[in-house]
């Protein structure tokens, strides 16, 4: 009976209630960590010896970029689970992930461009990371476009799941090829984004932000998941009971 939890996770009313109960456990720590991380990053950490205060945007840029990939992976795993075991809730999770991931990707692109201005003197540089991030945004947009294009929810779920799995196989290939491409054309004077070493006073707030963003994603995912489940189960009797109660 070790699989009971797995089966219960396939039941929409259970997941709906569970998501409601779990949300504050993600939301509050996320808020605290992000506030702490921002305080540490924007106030406590010393200015960078090369970039001055400009480097502080890393406290938003790096976690966003990290999340954009993590959300895509989460989405693909959920989609694969839904595809293989035909669990509808897993598809609902994948569908809820996409707009969040696209927003993180967009945030990473915007902060990257803003950071580029002081660093490179231009808002857009065909840097391998920014280019990969842009392609990732297109992958998200394609996923959401496919879902929007297919009217039948079941078909949309399953077709977009195939796309997510194909996408996750491709992400490393794309990243590798873009890095390879950039190494051919790059002028050697361009600074790298990541520093090999970082002072602890700079690093700790960054780690806080990373953890905070991850929990924030969890909280938003749970809220979106409840909406998604409500929408999918709108004609089910358990929803009528909740509404009437």
């Amino acid at each position, binding site marked *: 009976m070790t699989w009971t939890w797995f089966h219960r996770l396939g039941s929409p009313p259970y997941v709906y209630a569970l998501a409601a109960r779990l949300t504050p456990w993600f939301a509050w720590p996320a808020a605290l960590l992000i506030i702490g991380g921002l305080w540490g990053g924007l106030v406590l950490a010393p200015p960078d010896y090369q970039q001055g205060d400009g480097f502080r945007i890393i406290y938003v840029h790096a976690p966003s970029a990290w999340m954009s990939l993590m959300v895509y992976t989460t989405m693909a795993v959920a989609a694969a689970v839904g595809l293989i075991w035909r669990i509808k809730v897993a598809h609902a999770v994948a569908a809820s992930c996409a707009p969040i991931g696209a927003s993180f990707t967009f945030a990473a692109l915007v902060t990257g461009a803003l950071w580029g201005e002081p660093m490179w003197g231009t808002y857009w540089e065909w840097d391998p990371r920014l280019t990969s991030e842009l392609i990732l945004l297109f992958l998200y947009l394609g996923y959401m476009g496919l879902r929007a294009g297919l009217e039948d929810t079941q078909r949309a779920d399953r*077709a977009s799941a195939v796309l997510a799995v194909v996408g996750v196989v491709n992400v490393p290939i794309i990243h*590798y090829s873009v890095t390879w491409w950039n190494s051919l054309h790059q002028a050697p004077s361009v600074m790298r984004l990541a520093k090999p070493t970082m002072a602890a006073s700079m690093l700790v707030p960054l780690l806080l932000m990373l953890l905070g963003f991850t929990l924030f994603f969890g909280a938003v995912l749970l809220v979106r998941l409840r909406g998604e489940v409500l929408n999918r189960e709108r004609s089910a009797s358990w929803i009528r009971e909740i509404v009437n109660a």
Partner: protein
Amino acid sequence: MSGYGSPAAGVVAQAAPLARQATVWAGSHQAPLLDAARLALARDLQLAFRKRGQLVQPLAFFAMVTMLFPLAISPELARLREIAPGVLWAGALLASLLALEFLFRDDAYDGTLEQYALSGQSLTWLIFAKTAAHWLLTGLPLALMAPLAALSLGVSDAAVPGIVASVAVGSVALSLIGSIGAALTLGIKRSGALLSLLTLPLSLPVLIFGARATQLAISGGPLLAPLELLAALAVLGVTLAPLAAAAAVRISLE
């Protein structure tokens, strides 16, 4: 074979003893998989040659895209030679995308895909056969035409073999990646823009390695490395893309 109007009762009386014999369904010997795949390939080729006008369209499109650049940038061959790899590959990518929309659409519409899915044959192999036909009809002609476009951009004829090889290998990967997008967008009206949105990001590695191979072919450098990477992508595509496309086709039939 008696008159159509004859009551079936007579047939029952004659044929009933057969019903218990194991040979009743002898006529239903499943065709070998390779025969089935070959037949699916031949069918698509024959159909394409019945509609020759459509075959020329991607090629004409490719020629036109190539023509845009001298007109938009400059007729100086020295400058065109520099951008030739990019022009060739962007053109090939768009031309192969243009033809993708027709890969499964008619077959979905007239029930052929349904019959393939229920044929008892591996749908993956039948889809692979269809994709192979698609490559023979668009990728290969594009590879043969690419040198013409390259020559018009001031590339020397020594680069021709390298260009043909890189476009031929790269277009295999493009057809395979495209087959996934084409299968996923089945049943969506006006799916052209969505198909590009799904397929182009996945095709970018092919573009990168292909353009690099072409660039090296033009400059006379060693192009084996990018060509091998292209081939690796094609092999990966051959092994994985038909699986994904077949899964997508099955989903479209649900």
